[in-house]
């Protein structure tokens, strides 16, 4: 018997233009929580996809309890007791929550699909995660955050020995995170082995026994979690020192650019009023289901408000569609990158320039040299990891895709930029860069609205935070050096 439950040896995976995995070794001990970390594009998801049989490696071997195995499909992986919650939301949206949870292992009575049992059992599992939602609802009717929770609930029924969680916490708020961690600990106590991929190093510290660190498709370090400090981890990942985020007191003008008065959309948010000033970084906090996404979708013209009014620079405006919003100098980086943000089949430069084409066209003909030049500027500014600006965006790692979408509005020179979960899935160094970019934009007079479930992020980047809960504004806060996330939570729940 080997010391390890699972061993991956010398795995090589190539994509056109990228060596995603360069002779990587990875191993798991029975009953441990292994953190897998690395910057965006380091190859974490690729490695796990190889393990799951989603991707076929060019070279390398996998051993389970000392015996060599071949995994050609997720079905075979599951047969070997390996299950995964993928990074991108991957639910069957036309089906109910309950059915999604039990998709791979239907609840049956006498060989017949038991709808009642499925719903009941799903309810129990959702309770464990403290999610209060009707399991018979179709997944397409719930928001991204809830979908994430459903994906996690699904791991609990896998019955797998090895459970891989690829960035499970990216869109969760403190509370859900805590629930998730409880679940992980519970699973561990049941003897399960867990791999968790995350960009939150505090989570690594809190949860994991060992940590595997990757950089640029190679393995750089495997060790006990308590043998490394957070700063060391960052150093291994980035191969350089990364500055801590500091709270910076900024001076903001008094000029009000955006004002909502009693904005209401029934069932989503009610009587929302706030004012945002020019050049301000305006944070919006709340727990999952607070209605932040809905509020700003409405302001952006994606939905219609039922009552209340919106003022831009003192003038009342009605946004009938995003076209109006953009014409008024507003941009939006949506929450669900893949579904709402990117044009998967198109190149990076097209994704960046799509809303700006008319600005670089003459007589309707687009100047593509200019488009690429500007895109390359964004690629450099945000350090997007890609072979070139011609690469299809779908071939980038999740974090890099997010940077491309951000670059779209940076290029567009908007007056007001709404960022819904802008750093979801983004690594520590890139996060710092995005914060820097946000501040830079704000210093140049752009008003930035940051919706985030990461309280620390809001505290460090915002000039002011609006706290929402269940569709209502619960208060406004000014962040300070010693402020902690729990304070915001208190305001939300008061």
């Amino acid at each position: 018997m080997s010391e390890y439950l699972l061993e991956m040896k010398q795995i090589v995976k190539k994509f056109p233009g990228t060596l995603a995995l360069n002779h990587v070794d990875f191993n798991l001990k029975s009953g441990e929580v292994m953190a897998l970390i690395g910057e965006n594009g380091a190859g974490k998801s690729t490695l796990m996809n190889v393990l799951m049989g989603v991707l076929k490696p060019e070279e390398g071997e996998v051993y389970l309890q000392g015996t060599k195995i071949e995994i050609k499909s997720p079905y075979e992986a599951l047969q070997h007791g390996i299950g995964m919650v993928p990074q991108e939301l991957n639910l069957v949206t036309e089906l109910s929550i309950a059915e999604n949870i039990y998709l791979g292992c239907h609840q049956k009575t006498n060989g017949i699909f038991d709808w009642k049992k499925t719903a009941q059992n799903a309810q129990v599992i959702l309770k464990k995660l403290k999610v209060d939602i009707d399991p018979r609802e179709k997944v397409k009717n719930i928001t991204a955050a809830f979908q994430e929770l459903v994906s996690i609930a699904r791991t609990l029924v896998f019955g797998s020995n090895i459970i891989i969680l690829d960035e499970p916490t990216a869109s969760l708020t403190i509370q859900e995170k805590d629930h998730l961690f409880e679940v992980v600990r519970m699973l561990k106590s049941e003897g399960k082995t867990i791999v968790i991929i995350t960009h939150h190093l505090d989570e690594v510290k809190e949860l994991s026994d060992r940590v595997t660190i990757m950089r640029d498709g190679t393995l750089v370090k495997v060790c006990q979690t308590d043998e490394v400090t957070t700063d060391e981890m960052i150093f291994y990942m980035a191969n350089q020192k990364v500055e801590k985020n500091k709270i910076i007191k900024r001076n903001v003008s008094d000029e009000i650019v955006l004002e909502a008065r009693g904005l209401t959309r029934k069932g989503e948010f009610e009587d929302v009023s706030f004012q945002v000033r020019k050049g301000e970084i305006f944070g919006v906090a709340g727990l999952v289901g607070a209605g932040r996404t809905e509020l700003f979708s409405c302001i952006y013209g994606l939905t219609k408000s039922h009552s209340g009014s919106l003022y831009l620079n003192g003038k009342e405006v009605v946004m009938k569609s995003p076209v109006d919003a953009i014409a008024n100098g507003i941009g939006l980086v949506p929450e669900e990158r893949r579904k709402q943000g990117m044009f998967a089949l198109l190149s990076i430069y097209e994704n960046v320039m799509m809303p700006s084409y008319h600005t670089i066209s003459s007589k309707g003909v687009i100047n593509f040299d200019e488009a690429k030049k500007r895109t390359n500027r964004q690629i450099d500014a945000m350090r997007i990891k890609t072979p070139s600006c011609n690469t299809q965006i779908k071939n980038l790692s999740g974090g890099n895709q997010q940077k491309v979408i951000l670059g779209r509005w940076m290029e567009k020179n908007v007056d007001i930029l709404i960022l819904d979960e802008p750093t979801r899935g983004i690594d520590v160094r890139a996060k710092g860069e995005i914060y820097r970019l946000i501040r830079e934009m704000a210093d140049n007079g752009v008003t930035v609205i940051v919706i985030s479930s990461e309280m620390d992020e809001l505290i460090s980047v915002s000039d002011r935070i609006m706290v929402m809960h269940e569709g209502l504004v619960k208060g406004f806060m000014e962040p300070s050096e010693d402020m902690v996330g729990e304070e915001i939570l208190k305001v939300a729940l008061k």
Partner: protein
Amino acid sequence: MENTKKNTGASGVLKSILTSTAGMVFIVTVVITLIVHLITRNFYTAYNIGTFMRSSSFTILIGFAQTLVLLLGGIDLSVASMAGLSSMIFAMLVTLAGINPFLAIIISVAAGFVMGAINGIFICALKLTPFIVTLGTSAIYKGIIYVATKGIPLTGIPKEVTVIGQGSLFGVIPYPFVIMAVVAVILSLVLRFTSFGRHIYAVGGNETASRIVGIRADRVKMLVYSLTGMLSAMAGVLMVLRLGASQVNIGEDWVMPSITAGVLGGTAMDGGSGGMVGTIVGGLLMSAISFSISLMGISSYWNEIITGAVVLIAVSLDAIRRMKQGK
């Protein structure tokens, strides 16, 4: 199917009729037939209902075949050719080889299954677009009919089996309708209550997601395409039994109606939602239109216009209803 699960009482059923695409289409169908009956006094007569049920059964059956594939997000342009080739095989076995007709039915339906499986192999193993694969195999299956029969019809199907296509249960309900109903019940139950059925929705709704939870998507697809072949074969053979002879172009025009029946019944063409009950309703509407045109003695020149207009009106009414409900 999907819509009814939350509503169990009678009022729930009523509500789900009023709030589903299939329901709207059903209402349009009933209204049309009532109007035609009021004008001609001829729709709701025992004789007429009998022939109506009989002729609609074929569209509906082939609609079932297509709906299965639509649920996967695929399409099968070869349903008509598979129906034709299977029916030819059946007729040849009976008239030329002298095989027991019931055995011949089984063999030819199995042949349909194989034809569907061939579609499935191309689609799954080579990851080809269903449209182009089934277009190709459709031409091949149809070509085989031409080559094998040289266009000459095969007659002499024995009465012992033609009664299945021509007779009626208790002299009232035509057997093809009975068969269609039985198939509908079986398929609905399979779709609703078996892993295979649920996996069809999962694969059709999100193939990547279904693979990651260990659903063998290719196996599901293979089986679905094969079943589609089998159901098409059933419809084809049944048509031979109904006509008492096999002809080169049996079912030739079934492809578009099969898709239309499914779509009118609320099955989405991009997969993952819909069901057999809707297809029945869609098939009934289409049969009702052509029946009504014929009953009203409307000029052949106007046929197409009226058919097109009714289909458009039905789906538009449904769209307006959905918009009002703010979905």
